[in-house]
């Protein structure tokens, strides 16, 4: 069993579950604690099958490159920036899931800050351009 989740993460998951845009939610360590059904295409597996995944595992499931098709280092990816800087971060990138074709997407990640400025994790959405 995973650890009890704060209400902000529970509500974030409920909202993500009812939206059509791919959404990933990570905890403060970058562990992927939930992704919704539209995001299952990106991660190439259902959340019910994977459960929670460490940062190095889930981030290896898709490749990101900048507008010039230069690979983006793990630490420069939007989710990692949102976690390390605790600021919203948005970037237009090329994304490849598995061996499928590259897609031009906008990725926006933002930290989840609770009561008393408690840092709870971050959320990321993908928007195909």
């Amino acid at each position, binding site marked *: *069993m995973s650890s*009890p989740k*704060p*209400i902000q993460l*529970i509500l974030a998951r*409920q*909202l993500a579950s*009812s939206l059509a845009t791919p959404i990933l939610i990570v905890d403060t360590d970058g562990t992927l604690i939930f992704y919704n059904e539209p995001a299952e295409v990106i991660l190439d597996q259902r959340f019910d099958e994977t459960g929670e995944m460490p940062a190095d595992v889930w981030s290896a499931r898709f490749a990101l490159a900048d507008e010039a098709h230069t690979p983006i280092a793990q630490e420069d990816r939007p989710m990692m920036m949102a976690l390390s800087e605790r600021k919203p971060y948005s970037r237009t990138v090329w994304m490849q899931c598995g061996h499928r074709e590259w897609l031009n997407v906008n990725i926006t990640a933002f930290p989840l800050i609770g*009561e*008393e400025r408690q840092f709870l994790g971050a959320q990321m959405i993908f928007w195909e351009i």
Partner: protein
Amino acid sequence: MQVTLWGTRGSLATPGPEMARYGGNTSCVGVLGREGTVLVLDAGTGIRPLAATIPESLRRVDILLTHLHMDHIQGLGFFAPLYRADIEVHIWGPGSATLRLQARLMRYLSPPLFPVNLSELPCKLIFHDISSRELDIGEFHVCSALVCHPGPTLGYRIAAPEGGILTYLPDHEPALGALRFPSLPREWTSGGALAADADLLIHDGQYSATEYPGHCGWGHSSLNQTLDFGTLTEVKQLVPFHHDPDHTDTDLDRLIAQAIDQTKPGYQVTPGIEGTIFEL
């Protein structure tokens, strides 16, 4: 610990002969520890008769507010110990993102809504802003956590040194946004960790299953959801609480029996009737 229900009605005090058995006072529960610690859970109109039972020798009382909706604070100004100079009254509850607990409470406890200012009270009044945390109050270990209800709202889990666990979630809508409820494990369910394996869970059960869809998002549960929540969290006994002001004694008997029949809980369900005392 001894747990007494002093007010079990939700939303609005509801006097009248048709409500006499379940009671018309709004949310208030008294908790008395074996070593004499007195906790008051919420300050609905039930707090006034509770105050009459507090001995003159008591020098400290702790009021734990879940949130600041009117039915949970309306009795506060009528809590007799506030007008005693020889007692400490500690008020615990949630601030907001912009206001501290004291400032939020003063919106009600000041003219023109109330004739007396907090600063005029003779007791030693101490405010504690809390959200999700663990603390010790007298002999009790208390865990608080934010739960699903409009505005900052806490639930409480109170453990006595001799082993009893009481969980208090009077205003709670854990089913909000869920496609099916319960479908997720309890660590992903609002209030799940607070209620896990509790000896006694006092939980919102404001609506019938047919009434709930018309009130989704108002922060309350149907009786069926409440009993399913009790099954998910594996409580030993559950008290449906925060009864809708439109539900008479006859309605509540019928609705609770119907919910038990439909959900078949494997634990004891005790209707939330004013004056009921539990020994944990």
